[in-house]
């Protein structure tokens, strides 16, 4: 068995058994759900950042839209959780696909600035449109509904909800893995490495960036929908540029060149947030910031980059 297959089996085995072992090391299952949710959106972002080589600093827009999509549908239309997740995913994804053409011809910092600007537009709409989104107070009035499988009804308390999230995380991760092993994924990497080279091989670079952006939007929309269901709440802060920055930090911390980097980054970030903020409630971000600087300066390939290098030496 290849080393990669072995690593994958270990990771999935650990993820499947989280409720059994996480409490033993001082965690709780809802924390793991949060980690998966943020890891999923970061995987989407990393498709852009790490594999296509374009800087999206506004990924929270699609995360937040996914949340509002799921929340609004539960408030107004249905109590079906699956539909809520699907609507949230579509909200994030379709927004990204529609907005992609504005971005796809821009390069580098211009691309980044426009993604931030678009994100801020959504933030202000959500924050000001009180009657529809709940404004600054956020959207409430919905909660996780039980799932019905035939005659069996499952109440989504912490542990069942974790598996609900893990189910969607697995779909998202499998989709990204398949994508990265396909010619489409290789083309994304080719664009990252050199746009001109890709262009004279017949690649319409802009269209591929659009595709990458759209796919990332669907993943972040899905994660955002799950996030709203996790909290039974969604607020404009989930659309704010700071939230976008957090996703970038997670991607960089974990390792942008690695498939599992976003999960590792999310574990570190959410773990820090949970643990350090209980000791330093007002300035836990200082520690994340310091860690971020150290990683960027000394370990540009993130934590997974360090582990990989160690594994190679050993």
């Amino acid at each position, binding site marked *: 068995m290849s080393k990669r297959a072995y690593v994958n089996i270990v990771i999935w085995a650990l993820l499947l058994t989280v409720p059994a072992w996480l409490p033993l090391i001082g965690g709780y299952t809802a924390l793991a759900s949060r980690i998966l949710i943020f890891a999923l959106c970061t995987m989407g972002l990393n498709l852009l950042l790490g594999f296509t080589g374009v800087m999206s600093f506004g990924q929270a827009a699609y995360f937040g839209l996914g949340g509002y999509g799921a929340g609004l549908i539960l408030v107004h239309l249905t109590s079906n959780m699956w539909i809520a997740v699907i609507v949230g995913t579509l909200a994030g994804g379709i927004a990204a696909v529609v907005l992609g053409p504005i971005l796809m011809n821009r390069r580098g910092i211009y691309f980044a600035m426009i993604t931030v600007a678009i994100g801020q537009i959504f933030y202000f709409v959500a924050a000001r449109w009180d009657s529809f989104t709940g404004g600054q107070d956020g959207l409430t009035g919905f909660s996780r509904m039980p799932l019905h499988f035939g005659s069996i009804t499952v109440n989504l308390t912490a542990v069942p909800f974790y598996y609900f999230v893990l189910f969607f995380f697995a779909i998202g991760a499998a989709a990204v893995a398949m994508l990265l092993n396909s*010619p489409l994924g*290789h*083309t994304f*990497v*080719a664009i990252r*490495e*050199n746009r*001109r*080279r*890709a*262009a*004279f*091989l*017949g*690649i*319409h*670079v802009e269209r591929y960036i659009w595709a990458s952006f759209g796919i990332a939007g669907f993943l972040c929309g899905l994660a955002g929908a799950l996030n709203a269901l996790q909290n039974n709440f969604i607020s404009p802060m989930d659309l704010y540029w700071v939230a976008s920055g957090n996703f970038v930090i997670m991607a960089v911390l974990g390792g942008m*060149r690695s498939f599992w980097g976003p999960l590792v980054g999310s574990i570190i970030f959410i773990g820090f947030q949970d643990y350090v903020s209980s000791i330093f409630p007002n300035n836990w971000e200082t520690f994340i910031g310091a860690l971020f600087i150290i990683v960027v300066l000394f370990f540009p390939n993130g934590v997974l980059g360090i582990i990989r290098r160690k594994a190679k030496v050993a």
Partner: protein
Amino acid sequence: MSAVLKAENLQTFYGKSHILHGVSIEVEEGELVTLLGRNGAGKTTTLRSLVGLTAPRQGKVEIFGQDTTHWPAYKISRLGVGYVPEGRKIFPNLTVLENLSVPMARPGRWTIDRIFELFPNLGERRNSWGRQLSGGEQEMLAIARALLLNPKLLLLDEPSQGLAPLLVRDVFRVVASMREEGISVLLVEQNARFGLDVADRVYVLNDGEVVHSGSARELAADEQRVRALAGAGTEEGESAVAAQGVTTA
């Protein structure tokens, strides 16, 4: 015979620097044409102007009868134009197989299997990273990548650059064999020996202008003329020995 490539009066700039001062060249169907010239003569710029990487400010490029002067590179490529840039420029963080999955392959005779027949080394190293390949293997990969487009016209920029003499011979054997495949070739070379050996016709560039054009054989026979026109290349002892190899092999 009809021209597959026709460039008229190309005036190309990099910012304010005027690089090409009215270059006109033609490649007929099935022909192998070499573009010779000293370092900095504008050879690479000419190729870049032809494939849409640096559009000329004036002049006209016609490929397969279509005006492609201001087309983006990907569109020109899809017409069936393969471009192998200087310095190989493969994708270092993709494996050999993955590198070959990137081109917008057009249906035709060239498939990955056939590529591995032509370049058995690449087949053996199909799962190696691009960056792990030797210079010769990278050149082969760059050519292979262009061939998957099933080009009718292939533009090669200094394929011999930085390669050991033996490898140069292999590369030129492949280049020469393109003619049998019915592919028209425009080859840029600094090394006049190699360039003249394989070509039907030749253009010599100097300071962004065509200073000579004509039959490759005629020019090859006149060594002094070659030296005067194209400068270096003939004097490079080692390469000249390898060039002998091309003719005898």
